[in-house]
């Protein structure tokens, strides 16, 4: 077990490389999840804000999602 962690004395280099790799990929996954949730909340709020206006007027489609760029 100790041999696994020490990697012949090069543990710092080996685990520094693997740790950063898996750490960054994990952060990317969490960031993607968070941004998906945030986008859905924002867009559904926008839709709800526009919904009453749309039924009130027969003007058709509401204005575009102003100020949002992706």
């Amino acid at each position, binding site marked *: 077990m100790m041999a696994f962690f020490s990697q012949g004395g090069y543990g710092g280099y080996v685990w520094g490389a693997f740790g950063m790799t898996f750490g960054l990929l994990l952060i990317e996954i969490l960031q993607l999840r968070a941004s998906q949730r945030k986008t859905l909340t924002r867009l559904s709020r*926008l839709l709800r804000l526009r919904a009453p206006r749309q039924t009130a007027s027969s003007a058709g489609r509401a204005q575009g*999602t102003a100020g949002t760029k992706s």
Partner: protein
Amino acid sequence: MNWFKLASPAAFYPFAGRLIPRFGLAALVLVLIGFDWGFFLTSDQLGGSNPQKEYYRIIFVHVPAAWMSMWLYLVLAAWSAIGLVFNTRLSFMMAKAVAPTGAIFTFLALWTGALWGRPSWGTYWDWDPRLTSELLLFFLYIGYIALHSAIDDTRRADRAAALLAIVGLVMVPVIFLSINCPDPTQCASLHQRSDPGSIHLSILIPMLSMTLGFWAYSFAAVFARLRTIILTREADSAWAREVIAQEART
């Protein structure tokens, strides 16, 4: 299956959604196989009179990350070119979705390379042609992302960033061919020419498994990012409004 139908964001959105868990699972399995094989089945020291020390294990993340950094740049440039030529919306979104994952793998190739270089070459960094060109590739990814986010109009941002991606394509063959010392017995070189046939099988198999795992991971990450981009850009269309209303409830 009609592949042209998938060029429409409305069709691609659910398609990508179905593929993400499959690619995610494949990535997990392949990376675990690569890790397990590389650490427990491959011996600690390889080679006869001048054995590789344990830090050679960094190869199992370093080479796959470097390959993915170049491959994803090719994908980024290809979708950019398709977008510019055919003016297809989804192509630009695809390119935009690839860039951050490509930048991460490029950074990882540099980072793991530095941690490998210190014990083997005695330095974290050297202005060796391959290291330098890989660093420039990282700046190209950052430049693509920065340029895209600096332009407010989505269509203009797409086209300008696509042009940068295509011009930057020259870096990929430079990285690939950047070996300043073809014959290691004649001169010292940090990256030497090697072909897959000369690599020991017990290193090659975990390395390839890890590469396929990173590839599957890239599909999952890019598709996840793409779905958010599609939804934001298509928010005004009927199908997207339906999806938003549906997914916000769950």
